[in-house]
């Protein structure tokens, strides 16, 4: 047994209202730079839908993840080491920008400096790639809330797996949101695909990161990741991906997406697992067995043997205690309501999901039956094959049994808690019907419905012995670094070449650059661009308003034909 700790996440999909706050805050924190305009470390997809990038789940096309070869051994679906090196000069299955979308901004400047004219000036969309006018035809959320699904629904990869009838009826039947971040897999195929060995999994907390100093831009990781959560920064020529907000997690704060989640649907905690059994689990012959196989890799943090082994593996005591209190471990292994996303990719993903019961509840309520009664709900779970089959495609490689079981547990909790809330005698038969005790059911309810910040996010900070690595955040002003390398803009060898600047310095300069710049399309003169999203409303950064024409100090312009210009 080789115990390792993994920082993991569970999302309760019933609570997701599709507000995209997580995506926006993540974008503002991590990817509001040139080169990564199209990059969404966190995105929220409407299901059924195509996802982002379009149809990323179609692994026959994109060749992401692992597969078993004829001998039953685990191999990369896009080909092994030799094939990777042979195709390194032109990756045959790299999504192009069309599969994401061409990022754009608007030419807001026209609105303020257009000459007097008959028609109101228009802020035209400008491509952030070419800087030219463009026609917007797709974006990260084009099919949000099933928008345009009449035209694009047949492109949902999972719907192709289920029957014609379902394809026809799905729109009336159900819809839910699926927030996605990097899965920080136990068996990451992006890391395995990286020719330079720049993508690594951290020993301490299992976060998968790209070493920006070792990445050479071979682009194989983008192909390797079946979730398409590694992105290529087209300005720096390096791969970037979700970092699980490691600078925050190291000091015990939840990720930005979790912190700002309006529905409070995210849970973060540690999971202990046996690293020696990862390969075996990923090689499970049957796709539908992968969910159970992965659960078997996780270790019970209360087991004295596991604790002893963890201590031998130098996992600090407070981390073991955090693993015992971990909401993620509870939801996955104790209550068994969380399921992995696409286990059939064989990467052993570590962001799990509690499938939504709401499609079932809505359907029952619409028929006029009692949507809180467990018998009705159980019958509905059995009867409503459409959502269950679809969820099974998503979470269990098509096996409906585990999804059924989870939905029944959630339905039972709903019915059981109604009795308590209405002051009736709680019915012990309800939890028993899904194999749970009354106490356990109440605890699950607490965790799913009431859990406060420190119960949802059980994040042991990085250790005091390593506090020096956190200095930048805590003990001294990191900005006394003016003129250091990498200070915004370009070094001699292209975008941000030069050594790495401290993260805080980078943020400071990026923010200042954005506040003091003025061109709409970044590639032309990105040193002067104003981003109103980052303007705090105080003062007016240079470039926010167009330069007053010379000789107009008196405020009026004699040449404007008697018309008085509107003043801000």
């Amino acid at each position, binding site marked *: 047994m080789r115990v390792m700790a993994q920082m993991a996440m569970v999302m309760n999909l019933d609570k997701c209202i599709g507000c995209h706050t997580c995506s926006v805050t993540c974008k503002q924190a991590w990817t509001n730079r040139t080169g990564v305009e199209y990059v969404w470390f966190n995105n929220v997809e409407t299901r059924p839908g195509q996802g982002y990038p379009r149809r990323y789940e179609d692994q026959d096309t994109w060749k992401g993840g692992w597969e078993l070869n004829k001998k039953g051994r685990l191999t990369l679906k896009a080909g092994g080491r*030799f094939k990777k090196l042979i195709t390194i000069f032109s990756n045959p299955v790299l999504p192009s*920008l069309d599969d994401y979308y061409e990022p754009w901004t608007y030419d807001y400047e026209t609105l303020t400096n257009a000459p007097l004219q008959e028609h109101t000036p228009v802020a035209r969309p400008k491509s952030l790639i070419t800087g030219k006018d463009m026609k917007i035809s797709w974006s990260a959320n084009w099919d949000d809330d099933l928008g345009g699904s009449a035209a694009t629904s047949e492109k949902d990869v999972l719907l192709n797996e289920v029957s014609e009838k379902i394809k026809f009826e799905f729109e009336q039947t159900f819809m839910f949101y699926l927030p996605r971040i990097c899965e920080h897999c136990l068996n990451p195929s992006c890391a395995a695909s990286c020719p330079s060995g720049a993508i690594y999994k951290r020993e301490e907390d299992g976060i998968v990161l790209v*070493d920006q100093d*070792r990445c050479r831009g071979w682009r194989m990781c983008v192909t390797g990741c079946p979730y398409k959560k590694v992105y290529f920064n*087209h300005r720096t020529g390096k791969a970037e991906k979700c970092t699980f907000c490691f600078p925050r997690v190291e000091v015990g704060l939840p990720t930005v997406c979790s912190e700002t989640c309006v529905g409070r649907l995210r849970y973060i905690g540690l999971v202990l697992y046996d690293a020696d059994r990862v390969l075996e689990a990923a090689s499970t012959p049957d796709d539908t067995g992968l969910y159970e196989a992965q659960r078997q890799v996780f270790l019970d943090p209360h087991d004295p043997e596991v604790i002893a082994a963890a201590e031998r593996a130098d996992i600090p005591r407070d981390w073991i205690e955090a693993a015992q209190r971990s909401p993620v471990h509870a939801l996955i292994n104790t209550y068994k309501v969380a399921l992995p996303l696409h286990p059939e990719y064989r990467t052993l993903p570590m962001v799990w999901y509690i499938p939504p019961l709401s499609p079932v509840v809505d359907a029952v309520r619409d028929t006029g039956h009692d949507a809180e009664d467990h018998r009705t709900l159980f019958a509905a779970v059995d009867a409503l094959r459409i959502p269950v089959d679809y969820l099974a495609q998503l979470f269990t490689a098509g096996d409906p049994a585990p999804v059924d079981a989870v939905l029944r547990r959630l339905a039972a909790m709903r019915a059981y808690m109604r009795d308590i809330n209405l002051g009736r005698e709680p019915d012990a038969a309800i939890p028993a019907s899904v194999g749970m005790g009354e106490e356990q059911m109440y605890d699950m309810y607490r965790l799913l419905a009431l859990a406060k910040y420190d119960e949802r996010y059980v994040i042991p900070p990085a250790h005091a012995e390593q506090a020096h690595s956190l200095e930048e955040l805590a003990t001294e002003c990191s900005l006394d670094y003016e003129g250091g390398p990498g200070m915004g803009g370009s070094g001699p060898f292209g975008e941000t070449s030069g050594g790495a600047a*401290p993260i805080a310095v980078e943020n400071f300069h990026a923010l200042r650059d954005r506040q003091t710049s003025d061109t709409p399309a970044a590639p032309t003169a990105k040193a002067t661009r104003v981003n109103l999203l980052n303007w705090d409303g105080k003062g007016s950064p240079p470039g926010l308003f167009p330069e007053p024409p010379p000789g107009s100090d008196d405020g009026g312009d004699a040449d404007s034909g008697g018309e008085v210009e509107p003043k801000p």
Partner: protein
Amino acid sequence: MTASAQPLTLAAEAGAGGTLLWVVLPYVSLAIFVLGHIWRYRYDKFGWTTRSSQLYERRLLRIGSPLFHFGILVVLLGHIGGLVIPKSWTEAAGISEHTYHVGAVVLGTIAGVATVGGLAILVYRRRTVGPVFSATTRNDKAMYVSLTVTIVLGLAATVAANVVGGGYDYRETISPWFRSIFYFQPDPALMSGAPVLFQLHALSALLLFAAWPFTRLVHMLTAPLGYLTRPYIVYRSRDVRLGARAPHRGWERTGS
């Protein structure tokens, strides 16, 4: 491309000019090549990348890039075979001058045409595809010029020597000169007698090598051959340098 079988040379004899071109320049460019790479690797690891533009355009790249890269790899092998391995070795191995020459010309022509063709596609793509062109720096443009000149001169020298002059045995002059640099007994006289196109090819290559560490060509030195042997999943301990500052300890470490 006036090829000449006669020894029309740049420096008449290995005088001061010959010494400058075939002794000083090689060592200077070699020094810049080595030290420049060391400096670049220390100073600019982040800028050390292929700067791939496949995201912008892939149809032309799919043809041009493999054509160029595989071509240039064969060309590289050919140069190693021609410059590094002495003639006496191949003859000892039973390969006659004629056999060697035919093999070199056939292989070299195929590889050369592939390289130049691929390069033409890539340059065309870089100029005509909007996003690719706007991602092209001045550094890139200079590099493209230098690289193209070197490759075209090399191909021209071979073609000219074979078509017009019936072959030139560079293994009698250029190769010994090349090797002489590395055992520190450079002999400029060997090079002074070579045809002018070969001389120009060598000179442009020397200049290219001097510019090499400061261009995107550095990605060649980190060709990921280690991928063939390393384990698939890389585990690393948390990097204390992530904050980009050398850590200093505030207290003495205790037992654990």
